[in-house]
């Protein structure tokens, strides 16, 4: 059940995309997201689809695995689509009582769905191909110029590493507690919403208690090893830009230019 969530999970491999420097990947994703929100017509989405498909193909991750990452936000996507469909002003093509659908609304709804869809696909491709450690290393390096104006880059990265590190641990613990309470006859499936929310209490309380216990233990363990933040710390793996990264940059920039060209020309 819980293991079916692929959003934010790492899929080990050694493909071109896996080998890219995390900084390249993060910045490329930023460009990718910017581009998604700049697309003005369906041609742009066509180019986006081809680009995304090529990326997934070269990452050697099964397509179905990437699609699975979209599932958890499906409800959100449907909501957005419905709101855009009914609440956009413009040329009315269908109406019933106070409900109306406009041509602009249809267009916007489709755009929104596509945007969210590609947004999640792109970002889940980032987390699928980048180990959490590499990801936070990349973020730390990208933020380090801002240290001068007081951004605690190392601390932020450390917090993210710890948070990511504990995702699988907490999932495992949740599953254990669910099993224990199921064995005691807890019922999570029947009843109305209030009953179901109440049924979560026997899971949430032990989970919180456990999370605090772990946080405490970790803090003690870090202090025992004299951890004291980012100053003068060296690292095991230094990040290095390679030829692959140059290739990645060229690829993404060509894609961005194609989309902008399609915005203007088509």
């Amino acid at each position, binding site marked *: 059940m819980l*293991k079916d969530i692929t959003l934010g999970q790492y*899929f*080990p491999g050694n493909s071109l995309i896996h080998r890219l420097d995390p900084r390249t990947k993060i910045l490329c994703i930023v460009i990718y997201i910017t581009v998604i929100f700049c697309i003005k017509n369906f041609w742009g989405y066509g180019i986006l689809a081809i680009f995304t498909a090529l990326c997934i193909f070269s990452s050697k991750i099964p397509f179905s695995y990437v699609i699975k990452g979209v599932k958890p936000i499906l409800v959100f996507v449907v909501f957005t689509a419905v709101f855009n469909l009914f609440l956009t002003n413009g040329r009315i093509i269908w109406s019933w009582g106070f409900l109306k659908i406009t041509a602009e609304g249809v267009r916007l709804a489709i755009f929104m769905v596509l945007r969210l869809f590609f947004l999640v696909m792109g970002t889940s491709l980032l987390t699928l191909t980048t180990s959490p450690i590499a990801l936070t290393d990349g973020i730390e390096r990208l933020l380090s110029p801002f240290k001068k104006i007081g951004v605690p880059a190392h601390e932020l990265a450390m917090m993210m590493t710890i948070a990511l590190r504990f995702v699988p641990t907490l999932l495992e*613990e949740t599953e*254990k*507690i669910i*099993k*224990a*309470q*199921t*064995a*005691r*006859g*807890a*019922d999570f499936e029947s009843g109305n919403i209030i009953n179901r929310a109440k049924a979560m*209490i*026997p899971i949430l*309380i*032990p989970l919180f*208690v*456990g999370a605090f216990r772990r946080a405490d233990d970790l803090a003690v363990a870090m202090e025992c090893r004299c951890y004291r933040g980012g100053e003068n710390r060296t690292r095991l793996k230094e990040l290095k830009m390679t030829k692959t990264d140059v290739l990645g940059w060229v690829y993404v920039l060509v894609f961005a230019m194609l989309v902008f060209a399609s915005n203007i020309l088509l």
Partner: protein
Amino acid sequence: MIKLNDVNYTYMSGGPFEKAAVKNINLDLKAGEFIGLIGHTGSGKSTLIQLMAGLLKPDSGSITIDGQTLYEKNTNMRKLRFQIGYVMQYPEYQLFEETVFQDIAFGPNNMGLSEDEIKRRVHFAAKLVGLDDAVLEKSPFDLSGGQKRRAAIAGVVAMEPKLLILDEPTAGLDPGGRDEILCKIRDMHRRLGITVVLVSHSMEDIASLADRIVVMNQGEVAMQGTPHEIFKGAKDLKTMGLAVPQITEVCDRLREAGLPLPEGIYTVSAAKAELEKILNAKEKR
């Protein structure tokens, strides 16, 4: 009582992290038996007992409890689980209620019992695991480690299951707490006549409690038999990364040194009796 037929279970099947946990398990536990389950870390013990408790669905094969097959269409899993008590490793992490009383009552409450019956069962279970009535009104988070463990076990026992499965119930306890918990488990088994499956890494505990021992190795049942039969095979156990009770080890070494001791001694009293026999025979000569 419970029968496992060619049971297989694989973790994360289909994904990149696929791992077979248990393979071709065939077991038959009789009512009232005390089963000791041993095996190296990662040998599939925990998976096996979770399958027995109906918490995991076998990929293939079937598990039958009192004639009802688990996960079959017309089997009410929730009702069936009421008959199986499952005490996970570090069960104190399941405590959540405001008072110990309420926490122990969680299971019986879910069973839909009357208030009087719930009260009776809570007090009965608390007494059985050795918790005073004064403790029942405390918050479970204010108890000591050993008391928490006992409160959690009481929460399972209060459901009065026919089959009680315990996953290393003594892990992380001090020797005093350990002996006490094991003593209570033995009591429960004797007084209630229930079937017990106990997972433990301590060969001494298993030897002194179990009627029958099941040895798991790499996801399969490697050996099963009485403690006497199992601890005769000290060499086999050692290749699986397991040990025999200390007293068995002592007797085996003495036999190697030339004393005519029989194989498969696993209690101190039996060893003492055998040694006395040898000494008496020597005196007579």
